[in-house]
């Protein structure tokens, strides 16, 4: 599924460079075209949050449902930082922990534009000090400019 083993690290580095330019401490992305383009990971969206957190500095971390850990490890790069949440736990606490671990404790977090409202809403409760803004200008500048839903005519 890798296009080339350097492709995704390069794309992540591009996104991180753009994040610095746009003043984002982290970017949060749900499964979809942007996640696939940047990380190579393809996953279906459901009520169980599966997220990638890209910090301005350091390695991305994947936040995944506990019983999907094996499948997530198969789909992510070897040695990827995977944070598991069990059914009675909060994925948003895991994301907040990633913010802590990557020293992204103040400032702006960019939300990928197709991210669903409940994820933002719960994340804001788990990490209330951060300011949540659109990630789109930074992602666009890094060459990620994907329309999630198919564009109908015209």
């Amino acid at each position, binding site marked *: 599924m890798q296009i080339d083993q350097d492709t995704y690290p390069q794309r992540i580095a591009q996104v991180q460079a753009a994040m610095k330019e746009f003043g984002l401490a982290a970017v949060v992305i749900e499964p979809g075209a942007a996640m696939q383009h940047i990380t190579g990971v393809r996953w279906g969206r459901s009520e169980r949050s599966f997220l990638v957190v890209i910090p301005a500095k350091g390695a991305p971390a994947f936040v995944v449902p506990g019983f999907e850990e094996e499948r997530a490890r198969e789909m992510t790069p070897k040695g990827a930082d995977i944070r598991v949440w069990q059914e009675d736990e909060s994925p948003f606490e895991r994301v907040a922990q990633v913010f802590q671990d990557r020293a992204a404790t103040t400032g702006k977090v960019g939300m990928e*534009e197709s991210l*669903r*409202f409940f994820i933002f809403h719960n994340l804001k409760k788990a990490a209330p000090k951060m300011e949540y803004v659109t990630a789109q200008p930074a992602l666009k500048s890094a060459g990620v400019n994907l329309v*999630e839903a198919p564009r109908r005519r015209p």
Partner: protein
Amino acid sequence: MTAGVVPITDGERKQRIAKAQRLMREQKIAGIFLEAGSSLYYFTGVRWQPSDRLFGLVIPAKGNLAWLVPADDEKRAPAGQDIHLWQDDPFPRLAQMLKDRGIATGTLGIDERARFFVFDGIRRACPALEFTNADVITAGCRMQKSPAELALMQRASDVTIAAYRAGLATLREGMPQNELQNNIHAAYRALGYPGYVSVMYGAYTAFPHGSLTPQKLKLGDFVMIDDGCTVEGYQSDITRTVIFGKPTDRQRQIWTLERKAQDAALAAAKLGAPCEAVDIAARKVIEAAGFGPGYKTPGLPHRTGHGIGLEMHEWTYLVKGNKTPLATGMCFSDEPMIAIYGEFGVRLEDCFYMADDGPHLFSKQSPAIDQPFA
């Protein structure tokens, strides 16, 4: 199997809106904004394909619904409704719609699945508003089903059982899993409803969400089929795990344990009991046999069940920590699977609804390892 299906009436939809408005007033929410999706369908019967061009609905706490529609789609807008067309930027238009309904300050509920750019556009255009998750209103209405909804879910369940019966009758040694899948899909089409099934054989039955690896059916394999269909938008979700050929003692033992766990969950589903009690009851049976504990495998790696309705998975959930009391009209799956990676998995899934006298199954449980249907 399409005869006699009664769609949701406009009268029932009006009652739903009235209930939503009552909940909004109780919770001090000025209105809710819905994107295209299952909640919008629930309240209006309107289906719309979400795209980059924003289409949405405002349900104010008081007054009539207002629709935000791309100007290009004017002809497709719902007839006889209060339609607001937008040309270049939907958000100033939406702000005006909200203002006209007295929603300039206070709290606006946002569809839980609204995309971030939609929310971001609204908060820029309406800086004096506060925002919350609209699920307190939408789930507050949708969680408890009416008799008309239960009848549609019953039909969806009956159709799925009929499609599974037809499909499993075609099993043969060497059958690729996509052939069984195609046979069940064909059965759904013949029955008149679109449906989907995932098929797992042998060791792949341990994976809760299956595997795309090509498989061929061997004697002694477990066959697992899961998923469902929709009738007037309402879902079924049924899993059967059945032996092909002769079971080993181990297969028989685990299958029987799974059935006991499923029974225990159902027995714990009492009106007023917290949702988590159902999960605890099923898990206790599985743990007593030496599996787990908790989510550890071999054992039950996920919650015991999910709510079901217009979405296959919706609020509320049979999961540890969920204190929501079981109430009449709530619908759930009962599926405490046993996953033994490297060996096999067994999942029996039937859905039930809560009535005044306790839980009622939409489908009869599988009676035996070689008998998927009662």
